[in-house]
């Protein structure tokens, strides 16, 4: 039985060079990695990314923010960011407890690609992209194209996520994140909803909403987004959301809730989110 390899590169070029051969399991915060191995460990090749310290931190650029792949949830919570990051910050506070937020990385949440990943809906509502590096160069993929399903992503075995890119909204924007679980905190989501509204002259100029835990991967609600555009930005937005707008979701029955409940609750959370966003200032 092989013991498995372990490598902790200090520089990005070393990391992508090592990845050329493929077959590595990548570990950053380890908060998904270790719990998955409590019951059974198998020999595996571990590429420990924690030495790539340049990848930690959030930078502002003229038209976007760049969240380094090793940025932790707590880093995000504590960073001085514009108000339209509030939804992502609210999601960050729901990722496990504070210890998890201190270790877990935002990129790890995306690469792990759990249907219940708390970071995904908020980043979808921010229209985020991910940056993937390999020895052959860098490519950028919209987040919606990166997450392909339950624990499936478009990351190729020789690629490493290096950053998450969030474009600056063209107009003043507000954002929210709501989560429903079987208890108040420290709980895997039954349903979550993230929303961002761009508002101009009292009307919705752009809307992005995403629902998590109700499909293999979190999903945007394009029909609803279209219906919201041009409407007065007030609490009345809530009642524009209809069951049909959520028809694209495919919730499942599991021990946390059944599909019917998830479908109902998703609509309620979408409405709450809209009431909340519309009612702001």
């Amino acid at each position: 039985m092989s013991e498995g390899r372990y490598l902790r590169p200090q520089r990005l070029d070393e990391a992508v060079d090592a990845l050329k051969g493929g077959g590595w399991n990548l570990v950053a915060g380890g908060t998904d990695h270790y719990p998955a191995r409590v019951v059974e460990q198998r020999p595996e090749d571990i590429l420990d990314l924690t030495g790539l310290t340049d990848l930690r931190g959030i930078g502002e650029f003229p038209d976007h923010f760049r969240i380094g792949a090793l940025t932790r949830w707590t880093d995000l919570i504590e960073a001085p960011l514009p108000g339209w990051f509030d939804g992502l910050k609210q999601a960050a506070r729901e990722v496990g407890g504070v210890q998890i937020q201190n270790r877990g990385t935002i990129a790890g949440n995306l690469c792990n690609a759990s249907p219940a990943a708390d970071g995904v809906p908020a980043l979808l509502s921010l229209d985020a992209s991910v940056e993937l590096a390999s020895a052959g160069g860098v490519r950028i993929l919209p987040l919606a194209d990166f997450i392909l399903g339950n624990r499936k992503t478009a990351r190729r075995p020789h690629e490493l996520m290096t950053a998450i890119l969030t474009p600056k909204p063209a107009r003043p924007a507000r954002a929210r994140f709501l989560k429903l679980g079987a208890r108040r905190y420290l709980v895997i989501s039954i349903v979550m909803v993230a929303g961002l509204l761009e508002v101009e002259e009292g009307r919705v100029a752009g809307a992005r909403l995403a629902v998590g835990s109700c499909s293999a991967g979190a999903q945007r609600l394009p029909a609803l987004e279209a219906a919201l555009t041009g409407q007065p930005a007030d609490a009345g937005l809530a009642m524009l959301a209809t069951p049909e707008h959520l028809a694209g979701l495919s919730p499942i029955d599991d021990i946390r809730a059944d599909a019917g409940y998830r479908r109902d609750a998703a609509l309620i959370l979408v409405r709450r989110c809209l009431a909340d966003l519309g009612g702001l200032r």
Partner: protein
Amino acid sequence: MTSHIKMDERVERDRLAEMVQAVIGKPLDRPEGALKVSGAAPYAMDRLPANACHGVLVRATVSNGTLRDMDVDAVQALPGIRAIIADDRLLRNPAQGMAGEAPIQGPKDIAYFGQPIALVVAETFEQARHGAQALKLRFEADGTAIVAPDDPKADIETPEDEQDSTGDLDAAMQTARHTVDAHYTTPGHVSAAMEPHASIAEWNGDRLTLYGSYQMLRFNRAELADALGIEEKQVRILAPYVGGGFGSKLGIGPEAVAAALAAKALGVPVAVAMSRQQVFESVMRRSETDQHIRLAADEQGRLIGIGHEALVSNLPGEEFSEPVTQATPFLYQGDHRVIGHRIARVHRTCAGSVRAPGEAVGLTALEIALDELAAASGIDPVKLRLINIPQKDPSQDIPFSSHMLAEALEEGAKRFDWDRRRSEPGAVRDGEWLIGMGMASAARVNMLIESKARVTLNANGTGTVETDMTDIGTGTYTVLSQIAGEMLGLPMDSVETLLGDTAYPPASGSGGSFGAASNGTAVLLACEEIRQQLCERLDCDMQGLTLKDGHAIVGNRRIALPEILDGSRLVGEGHVEPGKAEETVRQATYGSYFAEVAVNAITGETRLRRMLGVFAAGRILNPKTARSQCLGGMTFGIGMALTEELIHDPRDGHIVNRDFAEYHLPVNADVPQIDVVLLDERDAWANPLQAKGIGELGICGAAASIVNAIYNATGIRIRDLPATLDKIIDGLQSRTD
């Protein structure tokens, strides 16, 4: 010299009230608190010797059958592996509380999914875990095993001595003006102590020392010796610090026996710590219950009949069964009574004691039924309970030792502003939240268990208490020091209490809420013995001796204790045994719970807004540690009401949610401000301390107050706990449809 008492009758003399040190009844901090919060208190695994090997238990992955073979050679070839223990003495499941003998042993016959069947021992923990996971097992499974108590093919026992009937309940139900006839279910629960079960075993010749995490050392010592086939005197168990027990550490567990066998085989110390998943799978669960409750009341709401019939489960061959109806025979009046108790034999993990076995779930269902009777009769729930308090135990026709349920109900109603409650459900709305108030009675039987303690008055005037009693987070160190300090006139920093070592006199152990009262009485008696010896030295009688601040005061003389002791020390032992008082009077503790909830009218989420518990448990030895016990119990009640539920795979009975991510204990954000009020009471029938048990009273019916509040908020009656949001939203939708 030993001072002994057998509790055959009331003890009128209140010894503690005669003392003047004024430490008893004070909300004192735990003397070991700083050690615990700074990580300096050594729990079992903190005692790891440098040369210890590590063992990891291997589990069965069938629910019934036979272990035919395991591929030992392949694992032995792995790095670091020292042994694979598959001895016939391995335990099938932990011993039940106070068994004093080994439970069923042998790893070949599989009775449940998760049963420990081998121990892989290696030089490091990681090597042992790897070996345990790599060990290939071959089972011959019996695919017809019954894994659910409601399986029509389940073998159901109806023990004759656990059925009781007086009068004619069926007739009473027919003639009664108001009735309730309903089934209530509670799911399995686990204790979920923060410190997982762990043992380190070390042999010196034929003598075994075990560092463990256990609640009842004198019983554990007998169980461990019996399991290994050695004499009790060859075994010493130490458990000075225990990170919570709640019943899960009453009896010796599989990890202790496995560690001892491995340490013997290898000649080195062996440590075995369970993972959280193993704690879920191979330690006790509280049985799920199905309870059929019938209440019959007259026009004024006075109960004329009560029926309480329960179905619980356990493994084949286990004597324990959840005593669901324990408080029903004496809590309320009613001439026509039926008590029923049935046990389904199922291949799930072993059922045993989890905090307040019996009342925790049994009284919860009964108190939901009482709320249904209140709704059916239009009588206020507090008043309904007040008018049904019996004058004496209605089933045994014996008096109560003391009884403060009425005071607890009235005090609670006053403090909670119960008179502001709207009796019609769904009447109070706050945005999308429906607001409701509910309440329930609390009751728990009171027990006294044989216990011994030794107290030494040292030559320097300090005191030392020694007993194999445990402090499982409850405050034993604190209250025993308080009793000794009060009795010997010593400030708290002059008293040291040493616990958790079978080398000390055998105590009751921690369980059934009886620890502080039972073992505290032994300490009080030991101090009485020392006081007697001091009187002899001072040539005075007991009445003439006052002890305070390290001095004896006799007449107009005040003498420092070291002066009296003159270089010597005085040793006293105390020994208490239960006696006829148990049959002469009904002893119990009582209380009340009040809860206010907000239920979201749209999603069905329940948020507890505030909660109050009012309790009477005789003399309160330390209001701070007592209050903490009540807070913990009520928090258990919040979990029982809203979130906690063991989920078993219907195919093989294995526990699906075997960690804290999916077994939903309430988190801080689920627990609002809880207020606890402790009533002033003395119970001279209980023991010379006049104190009763309080460790479990806070959970006995607590969940009902929340479920009843949900009814008041919404009109939805949840009879199948926990009251999760999906159950509530079903009701909300069917009401609006």
